[in-house]
């Protein structure tokens, strides 16, 4: 087993990627994630080529179900619906953008399901997460708006947040599956605390 000791991990470059390269990476990683499933079947929406809207479900009961509606690493078919084996929960909508991807993580924000945006007063559409040092969801981080405080989001790095080498984004390996899986862990007991506002 090899544990490389090469160059120290670096922060992402935080420079937009050439759109064709971003598109190619997003497409490849999306196909590897969906493994035969379709966006339409899952209820995922691609409002523009470099953006994705992913319905997420947060659970108040113990479960191994993912927040994005199907088990990690399993195959499916076009038309398969999301959350077919999952318990009920609180529904959210995650907006991803891939303009800096794959050199940096995707932009990730919770948005109002009705408007597709996040505006003052939309705290209901932001989950409350506590008890983990992996993710926090801030309504307004230092006056810069919503922040999903996790190294698998672009905003974490844009905010200039402190970080550790073990949290580095690895462009040759990391994909947005890492972002979704990190959120999945946080949107279950004991970390998920309900909506930030009712």
């Amino acid at each position: 087993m090899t544990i490389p000791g090469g160059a120290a991990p670096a922060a992402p470059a935080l420079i937009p990627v050439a759109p064709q390269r971003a598109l190619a990476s997003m497409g490849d990683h999306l196909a590897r994630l969906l493994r035969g499933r379709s966006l339409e079947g899952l209820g995922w929406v691609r409002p523009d080529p470099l953006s994705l809207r992913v319905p997420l479900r947060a659970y108040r009961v113990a479960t191994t179900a993912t927040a994005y509606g199907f088990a990690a690493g399993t195959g499916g078919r076009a038309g398969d619906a999301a959350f077919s084996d999952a318990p009920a929960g609180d529904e959210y909508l995650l907006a991803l953008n891939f303009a800096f991807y794959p050199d940096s993580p995707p932009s990730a924000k919770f948005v109002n399901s009705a408007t597709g945006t996040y505006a003052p007063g939309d705290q209901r559409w932001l989950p409350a997460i506590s008890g983990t040092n992996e993710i926090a969801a801030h309504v307004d981080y230092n006056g810069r708006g919503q922040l999903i405080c996790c190294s698998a989001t672009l905003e974490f790095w844009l905010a200039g947040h402190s970080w550790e080498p073990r949290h580095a984004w690895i462009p040759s390996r990391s994909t947005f599956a890492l972002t979704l899986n990190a959120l999945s862990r946080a949107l279950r007991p004991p970390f998920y605390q309900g909506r930030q506002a009712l």
Partner: protein
Amino acid sequence: MTDTLEDRALLEVHFTDLHTNDTATFSVPGEVELVRAWAMAYDELGETRRPADTLESAGGEDMTPFLGETVREVQRRHVRDLRFQIRGGTGGAGR
């Protein structure tokens, strides 16, 4: 001591890399230690183990205490379906 047929049977293991959701499925002799099967998974996935990587069951149970057990022991005592996931380093909220 003579090996029984059960001792010699191959067991199918599944490792999902949560960086990508790519999965490696292969068979190993039951007496192989879990840490060795995990190393084989990196070869199958075309990846390299990073210092921040940890192994957990598909249900999220940390496998670190059981890495020295054989795959058969792990199946009997902890993870019947032998489905594991490789978790990478994400974080930052606690700083």
